Structure formats: structure tokens, C-alpha cells
């Protein structure tokens, strides 16, 4: 395991070769990712469409709720108006032709373009995801690092107890606890909502903490494991034997090598936040894609459901592609493979 040091001492004459090869490798990876993403999106879109077409109930029947009965003739008209009785291949073809030009169709419920409805939702969800991952990284990373460096001490134990708790506690329950503490007891933050216009920071804090607690815990554990593995590596011993300061060993060699594994965790967690924030968004009346999805599913608003899932899948794919690109920047060994 001397590669870690070796890459830091790249031979000057090899630089242009490595850079050219690196760029080609990156381009190839991006292209590969793009093709994979297109296939993934195609499969997901088809699956969702078929699934919602064959399960019992549709948007019209969902209107006949427990509280109010709607005349069956009215329901028939809704089905005709929305072409719900058209053959599945016809509906799917119509959907795909719209999708090809970026038209996700109109929401059955609001009769507004799904793309319009998604715009504000994407912004809100992205903001929440960024805040949550920021909290997870700022707290989880140092916590895991500290636990590894101080392995076996009370700091390590405390950090890991915190991490296990964060992973074990259900997000919904943790959110309620946050509400009780910061809103009801201390009166520092609003219970729920988004705030005026594009939202405000005070409304963002509680949902971000709630959404970020599990990734924070996972990140702490991953960081600890990665750092512990790196600490025992040959190149760290070599670096120390060369007389490097402990600070330089830790931050230049240990942290950088451990970060590849940590980055994977961050990428996966961040990528899944849009879809994983459904419960949190509902709890905090946060106007994101997750709460939109669950509402749309409950009323069988198929265009809206498909739009939400498409956004969630694309977000996941984009984030993971960016993570792959970041690997290349952090670890040149990957470029050379």
C-alpha cells in the first residue's frame, strides 16, 4: 500500500500523459454514466407507468372518498376527460412523446403542468437536502474522525453511542422530539412550515436536523472505520518514519485516503435524500418533492407521480455521477485504471 505516497510524487515527465489519460478516462466515465442513466430512467418510467395502470383504483375512483359520494356518471366523465380508459399502450405512447420534448403532462388534480408544479418543489427539496447533508458532514465527519483518532477512549464510545442512536431512532419520532424541544418548550423555532416566499432559515433548521441525523450517524461510523483502516496502512507508517509531523500525516495522507470511502457515503446519502425525505416533509409541512409524491400517489395522480419519481431518480443519478467525478479528482489511482 505505497500507492498513497506514490501518487503524491508524480514524475514531472509523466504529468501530461497522466492528465490526458485522466481526461479521457473522465470523459469515458461520464459517457458511460449517461448511457446507464438513460437506461435506468427508461426502466423506472416504464415500471411506474405499468404499475399505476394495473393496480386497482384510479384518479376518478379516489375522488369518491369516505366523506362524500360522487355520482358514478361524474366519475365516468372524469375517466373520459383524463383518457383513463384508453388502452395502456396508447397512454404510454402519449406519455413518452410528451416526455421526449420535456412535457411531463398535466396533473390530474390541478390540471396544471407537472413541470410547473415541480419547480418550487425541487427547490424546496434541494434546499432541505443541502442543509441536511451539510449538518451530516459538519457533525458526522469530525465525530467519526475524532472517534478513530481517540479509539478506545470515552470520546470514541460517546461518538459511537451518538451514531448508533442517530441511526436507530426513527426520523418521524426524532422530528417530533425536535418540535417539542425547540418549538414548544424553548419557543426558539417554528413547529412547521416553509416561511415566506422562498422560505427562511428558521423554518429550515428542524427539518434539516431531522433529515440529517441518520446520514450524520452513518457518516460518523463510516469515517471512523475508514480512518482506522487507513491508520494501519503502510504509507502512513512510511510517512511517519520520514519524520512528517502528525498533523501533516493525519490531514494530508490519512484524511485524503479515508475520504474516498466517506465520499461514497455522502454521495449515496445525499442522492437518496429527495426520495427519503417523504416522512420528514410531511411532518414539517415542507413543500418538497417527497410530500408531493405521497399526495399524488394517494389520489392516483399518475402524471404527478411519474414527474416526482423522475426527479428523484435523476437527482440520485446526477449526484452519483458527480461523486464518481470527485473520486477521480481525489484519488488519481482511479484515473489510471
Amino acid at each position, binding site marked *: 500500500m505505497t500507492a498513497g505516497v506514490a501518487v503524491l510524487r508524480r514524475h514531472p515527465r509523466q504529468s501530461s500523459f497522466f492528465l490526458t489519460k485522466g481526461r479521457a478516462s473522465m470523459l469515458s466515465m461520464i459517457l458511460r454514466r449517461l448511457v446507464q442513466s438513460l437506461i435506468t430512467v427508461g426502466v423506472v418510467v416504464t415500471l411506474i407507468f405499468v404499475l399505476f395502470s394495473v393496480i*386497482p*383504483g*384510479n384518479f*376518478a*375512483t*379516489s*375522488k*369518491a*372518498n*369516505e*366523506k*362524500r*359520494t*360522487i*355520482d*358514478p*356518471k*361524474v*366519475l*365516468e*366523465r*372524469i*375517466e373520459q*376527460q383524463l383518457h383513463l380508459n384508453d388502452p395502456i399502450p396508447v397512454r404510454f405512447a402519449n406519455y413518452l412523446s410528451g416526455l421526449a420534448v420535456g412535457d411531463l403532462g398535466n396533473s390530474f*388534480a*390541478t*390540471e*396544471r403542468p407537472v413541470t410547473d*408544479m415541480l419547480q*418550487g*418543489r425541487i427547490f*424546496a427539496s434541494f434546499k432541505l437536502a443541502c442543509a441536511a447533508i451539510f449538518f451530516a458532514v459538519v457533525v458526522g465527519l469530525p465525530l467519526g474522525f475524532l472517534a478513530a483518532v481517540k479509539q478506545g477512549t470515552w470520546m470514541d464510545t460517546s461518538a459511537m453511542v451518538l451514531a448508533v442512536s442517530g441511526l436507530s431512532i426513527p426520523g418521524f419520532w426524532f422530528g*417530533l422530539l425536535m*418540535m*417539542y424541544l425547540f*418549538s*414548544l418548550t424553548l*419557543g*426558539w423555532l*417554528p*413547529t*412547521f*412550515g*416553509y416561511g415566506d*416566499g422562498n422560505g427562511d432559515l*428558521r423554518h429550515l433548521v428542524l427539518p434539516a436536523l431531522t433529515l440529517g441525523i441518520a446520514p450524520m450517524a452513518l457518516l460518523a461510523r463510516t469515517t471512523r472505520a475508514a480512518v482506522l483502516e487507513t491508520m494501519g496502512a503502510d504509507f502512513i507508517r512510511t510517512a511517519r518514519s520520514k519524520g512528517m509531523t502528525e498533523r501533516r500525516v493525519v490531514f494530508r495522507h490519512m484524511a485524503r485516503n479515508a475520504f474516498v470511502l466517506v465520499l461514497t457515503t455522502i454521495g449515496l446519502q445525499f442522492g437518496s435524500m429527495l426520495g427519503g425525505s417523504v416522512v420528514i*416533509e*410531511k*411532518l*414539517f*409541512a*415542507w*413543500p*418538497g418533492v417527497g*410530500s*408531493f409524491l405521497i*399526495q399524488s400517489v*394517494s*389520489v*392516483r395522480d399518475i402524471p404527478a407521480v411519474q414527474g416526482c419519481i423522475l426527479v428523484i431518480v435523476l437527482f440520485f443519478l446526477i449526484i452519483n455521477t458527480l461523486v464518481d467525478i470527485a473520486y477521480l479528482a481525489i484519488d488519481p489511482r482511479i484515473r489510471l485504471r
Partner: protein
Amino acid sequence: MRTKEYGMITDFKRSRVGQLVAVLAVATILHGAPVRADEPLPGGTLHLAAPYGSALSSLDPHATYESQDMVVSKALHRALYTWDSANNVPALDLAASVEQSADGKTFTYKLLDNVYFHNGRKMTVDDVIWSYTRIMDPAKGYAGSTNLANIVGASDVLDGKATVISGLTKIDDLTFSVTFKNFVDPGTLFYEAITAILPQEEVAKPEFASQPVGLGPFKFVEHVEGSRIVVEKFDKYFKPGKPYADRIEFVITDDYSALDVAFRAGELDATVLNSNAYQLYTADPDLSKGLIEVSEVFTRHMGMNTEVAPFDDVRVRQAINYAFDRDLIIEKLLKNKAFKATGWLPATSPGFDATRTPYAYDPEKAKALLAEAGLADGFTVEVSVTEGGLELLQAMQPFLAAIGITATAKVLESNVLVDSIDAGEAVAWLRSAGTGPDPIAALRCFDSRVSRGGCNTTAFKDPAYDAMLDEAAATQDPAKRIELIKAADGYIFDQAPVWFNNYNKAVVATQPWVHGVDANATEAAILEVDSIWLDATAPDRQ
């Protein structure tokens, strides 16, 4: 944001509010104008909940029949009638008067002369006729078309045979008449937002779906989809001095736990409660003071498919009704947030018979009835429920087992359950049904001419009952009509196509500084927001 804890309000009053009240008192004495504590105080922002879902379905009141959307529509829109919660009847809203013809089928309305849309244009009869014609649009499936179908010629428009409703006649700009096919109470048909009067020129604009224009007490300001909707006072609202509040901020959520925390934190002025919160609030000396309880027009029941054995035998259905200790179920499971059902029509229905004795808890009688029906050894039945109804079924199972009936649960998603019932596949199911405010419409759910999808879910068929309903519907004399309705409800009670469980007790919690909140039996969450006001102690006024 208002962050004072409910329990701290008294301390709060003693401090800043106390000072404010003292200043106000001095100011009042100096000006010689007494301020009465019960006199509505204008101004302030109301913070209310639009519960039941995580997003509004639509801001077009004709296009949605969701209670959550109607909560907001009450602020933005108005229909010909409104619900008078104090008297529990529909009351004229946009009209100054109505006259009924001698044959009882034509109603002539004189509209108010001071009703304006939020765009500043005055409402006329043309708007009423246009709105009703829009509701009957054959290309759409507007829920209000069922309400309007009784108007002469309305069905022709719905079927594409006509473009105007012949039963609607414009007399002048403020006067029009409506002719119905049968005897109806137009108030029960025209009070919900699904029959709201809308401005044609605004509906034609694409932005109407996201920026609605109506003639309600508040006009649209902002909608953050899935989070909140904000409306502000409409200065040209037709009721003098109303609305009292300057602004309403509705939070859109279906999470009762979050609503509970927000209410306790003083961030909400009023909210509906679920059974868990109700139990906690009633036990709290402060919170219990602001509770408004109402028997809503919804009847929880176990429907039985009367077309299949063993529920095609009335004795079996009656046995089911004798099998349960409903008092125990209501107390332990529903935390007393329910009223025991004594018929299909609920306590707040004009057709409710307060003298009727409910089915007693009598397992021996239930067993005897089963034995008479040849089922002395009992039977096994599959009961279809949603996830939310499973707890009730689990509470019912021991009672059924005690009379020899083994009940198994078939848990279905709500839409799937509806499909299963409508297709006649479900044998028994737990549901709640809207049973008001029009008692005849509610009792039609056992009319043999009505399909399962049309609400006769049990497929109950009895010509004698149909005749009773027809007689009630054809009777013009209100008192006699009510007696006939009670008799029909009593008949259904005896025939027992459902297990009559309970009427929903809806509970609205209000803060001590909020006044004018009504107890709406048709849907407790839909508040008459033009009458709600905040007193000087409201955190919003500090």
C-alpha cells in the same frame, strides 16, 4: 412567528398583555368609547389548519370535493347559501330573499346588490347562471353536477343535448328563478364550494388554477404548494364590517402530531383534533376550555353485502347489531370521540329521531337470532378494512367470536376497498359515510334504484322502503316530510343492512384569544372565517 406555550399564556397576560390592557382601558376612558369584551375586534392574522392531506388538490372550487380544499375555499369563495352552524341549517348568503312557488318546485332569488368579485366587478345573475352551467359541462366531471342535476334541463346540458339549463331563468340582473324536477331543499344543494359563483373572465385565464378569484371575504395572496396558503381581507366583501381578521395563513398538513405541537405552542389559533389529542386536551384544565364539539354528519358503520349469504338474512344482520358493546368501543378505542349511532341519520340531521332506542348489547339475543337463521354454529366472515380501520375490527373480533362468528381482516388500500365494494366483491367492510345534511339524499344509500357506486354499497333492495322515500321526497309540508324521513330511517334501522356503530364527534380546539369559531356539523374543519376574530390578548397583536 408565535412561540408562546399555551400554559404560559396566563403569565404572558400578566406581563405585557396586562400592561397593554391597562393602556387600552385608560385610552378608552379618555375617549369615552367603551370596548366590550364580546365585541369583535378587527385586525390581526388568523393561523388556521387545512388538515387531511399534505397538499391541496385544487384551488378551483368546482373541480374538487375534498374537505381540505373546502376549508380554504370558505375564505375565497361563496355559494348561494352558506351553512348556518348555530341553527344547523343552510342559510341564504348571496341573496337577500327567496320565494317559493305555489307548487313548491320553483324558487325565485333576489341577489344582494353589493356583492363583488376580488377583481372589483359586481356579481350579477349572469355569473350565477354561467357558474351553474359550467358545473354541468359535459366534458368535465364536476362533483357539483350531482347537486344541480335536479334543476330542470340541467341533465340535458350534462348529456350534451343542450347548452343552457332551461330551469334557470334570468328575470333581471339581480333576480332569477330555479325550477326543480322534484321537491328539494335548495339550501342543502347550493351551500358547498362545489357550487360557488365564479367570475367567467377570471376562470378563463390560465392562472386561475393557481391564483383563484372569487367573492369570498378574503382574496388570494400566496400559495406554497404542500405547505401553506395565505389570503388577505377583501375590502369590498358584501357583509358589512366583515371579515374581522386582516389575513389568514393556512398551514396545509395532515399530521395531527405536528398540529398538536403547533397549537400548544400558540402557532395555530384553531385546529381539529384526532382521538388521541382529544383525550389529552379534555384532561387538561386549560386546553379543555377551548374545545368545540359537534356531531358531524358522518356515520361509521360495517356495511354488509345483502346480496350474499349470510347477510341476505335480516336476522343475521340484526344479530351483528346486538353483538357489540358499543359504549365500551367508543370509550376505550375511540376515546369518547364519537356518539353512539341510533340510525343512519346522525344527531345533527333534521331527520334524526331522538326517541329511537339503539340496539342493546345483547349477545344472547344475537345468538338466538343466528340460531333462527340456521347459523347456531356461527360462521366465518372476511371483513375488508383499510389500515386505519384495522384497530376497530380487532376490537370487534372478540364480540363476534362470543356469538360464534369468526371475523378475519382483509386489509386494503382505500381506493382498492372502494373498488371491491362497488364490484360487489366485498362481503363486509368498515367505512364511514356522509349522511347529511340532506336526509333524503343520505337515505337514498339504501334505495334499490341506486347502484353500489352511487352509494347503495350494501345493495339493499326493498320496494317498501323505496316507496317510503319517494313519499317523503314528494311531500311539501316540512313537518310531515320530516316524520316520513324518520320513519324511513327507522325502517332501515330495523332492516340493519349495516352495523350502526357511531357518528363522528368532530372536535375543534381553539385558543383563548379566538372568538366566533362555529361548530359546523357538515365538516368541523370548514370554518365560517369571516366571523372569527382575535381579542387583544392574541399573540399576533402583541
